[in-house]
């Protein structure tokens, strides 16, 4: 009797779904990103990411200008870590044209890349907390620290965010006097900030309740979907390009690769905290061994500094990648022997990390989708090319 009653009742309920758009002008989509969501009640049934609102055909722009001229455009891909983008592009062209990098420049590059990682990770954790509803207090704490590092970038390159500091075969200019001491100071004080940050957040009950067991990403799916960076490592896959490719001089430094266990939002948050600590270790070692003298740009490249249209890499192609804070940033450049690349392609980690967004969100509530997106860590300049 009870059973038939239940079935009757169910048949009366019209199983209606509701389709809504989150974005592109929504503050928690981190830019002009749109999620086309189908809801059953408040539960997500389907989610389609829509991108392209910031599309400017970065690849075409780069193919229409000389190799060096597209260096400042790589800054605009992921505007949080312009130094890492420069690094990836410089490495690719160096591989293409077979250019060596002097010792001192390598040290400067590693220091810049790791400082960028700190900048990115504090900012993304701040924004994640923003998405959780802890409005603006954590992000302002994070931005206070980020500002100190941006000041260093300004001293070195002249720009806070659009650094345009790397050149093929080295860096643009030498470190100004006194900057090393500033960096040492920042590196010394950063752990105490991290402890303060963690004391407020890591064991916070609300953060744990909202983040644990939400958006679980299985390692097999993560590998198959090409997920990279902290997101992949939060799922427990030990894959860090700094260790595997040993590009630049990362081989010399002693650091560990933090791994997550479950692959949920909390793991992604905590892996980033641990990665910052490892970055600080690398920075300490690099600052200790920093060479006092030496070239900052390869001798092979000095003639091209004034007239870079003369720089013509030999016919060929190269694919190189770096561990940028968001994942694997790869550049694919094909040269036909002219001053302009025939083909220039960016493998953008933010874009490819979004592949599994639907799989992570299905079955969760709308509010969880927001924090899952926050934990993926996207920047729309890079997603939309």
């Amino acid at each position: 009797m009870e059973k038939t009653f239940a079935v009757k009742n169910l048949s009366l309920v019209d199983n209606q779904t509701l389709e809504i758009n989150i974005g592109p002008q929504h503050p928690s989509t981190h830019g002009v990103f749109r999620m086309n969501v189908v809801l059953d009640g408040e539960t997500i049934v389907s989610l389609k990411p829509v991108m392209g609102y910031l599309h400017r055909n970065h690849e075409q722009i780069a193919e229409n200008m000389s190799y060096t001229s597209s260096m400042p455009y790589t800054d605009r891909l992921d505007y949080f870590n312009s130094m890492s983008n420069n690094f990836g592009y410089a490495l690719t062209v160096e591989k293409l044209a077979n250019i060596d990098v002097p010792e001192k420049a390598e040290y400067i590059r590693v220091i810049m890349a790791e400082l960028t990682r700190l900048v990115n990770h504090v900012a993304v954790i701040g924004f994640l907390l923003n998405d959780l509803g802890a409005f603006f207090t954590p992000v302002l704490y994070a931005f206070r620290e980020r500002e100190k590092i941006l000041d260093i970038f300004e001293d070195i390159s002249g720009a806070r965010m659009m650094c345009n500091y790397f050149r093929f075969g080295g860096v643009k200019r030498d470190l100004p006097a006194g900057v090393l001491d500033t960096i040492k100071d920042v590196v010394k004080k950063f752990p105490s900030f991290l402890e303060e940050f963690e004391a407020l957040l890591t064991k916070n009950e609300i953060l744990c309740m909202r983040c644990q067991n939400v958006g679980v990403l299985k390692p097999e799916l993560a590998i198959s979907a090409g997920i990279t960076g902290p997101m992949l490592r939060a799922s427990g896959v030990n894959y860090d390009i700094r260790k595997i490719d040993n590009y630049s001089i990362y081989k010399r430094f002693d650091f560990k690769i933090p791994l997550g266990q479950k692959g949920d939002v909390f793991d992604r948050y905590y892996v980033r905290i641990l990665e910052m600590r490892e970055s600080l270790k690398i920075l300490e070692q690099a600052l200790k061994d920093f060479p006092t003298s030496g070239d900052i740009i390869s001798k092979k490249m000095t003639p091209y500094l004034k007239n870079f249209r003369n720089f013509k890499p030999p016919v060929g192609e190269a694919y190189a990648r770096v561990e940028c804070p968001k994942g694997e940033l790869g550049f694919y450049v094909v040269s036909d022997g002219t001053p302009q690349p025939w083909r220039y392609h960016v493998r953008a980690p933010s874009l490819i990390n979004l592949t599994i967004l639907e799989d992570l969100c299905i079955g969760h509530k709308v509010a969880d989708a927001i924090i899952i997106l926050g934990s993926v860590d996207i920047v729309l300049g890079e997603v939309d090319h």
Partner: protein
Amino acid sequence: MKIEEFKTLLELKLPGIAFKQVRDSLLVENPSDLPKVAFFLKNSDLEIDYLSSVTGSDYLDYLESVYHLYSTTKKTGLITLRVRVKRDAPNVPSLVPIYRSAEFQEREAYDMYGIIYEGHPDLRRLFMWEGFEGFPMRKDYIQEDSEWLEPEDLEWLEKHQVPVTEEMKERAKTPRIIKKDAGE
């Protein structure tokens, strides 16, 4: 592994599939063999389980689809595969069933180069809007308004001492050609 060794290994394990060495990469001569090659790479003891990048490129005579692969378990790589297709019939089998990471990247290559990935679950444009005509990254693509000048442009050019020719003045007089699908 060197590319020559890798080629002989593949030829031994996959008889009937023709490979050709192009620089440091392997060209799969017949595009329809590509899924077989990818399936072998992923499931044999090479364990190439990570497709890092998929992209198209245009070489005027033909279009190319390039694949960069690594192994996360064995920490090996880079292996580059490529296929070449005709411009007027750019059909390449999709790798999405084998590597999920191809999903957005194949859509991007379709969007920019018009390479049709057969078997892709949802092959739509990724960045350009629905109804956009043409494939902007192809070398023969002409931008809609690249030749168009406004009278204000001429003023600006003259102000900055750029020589303005008669032909440019003619162009500024003619009204802008509006394409059929733009606006109305």
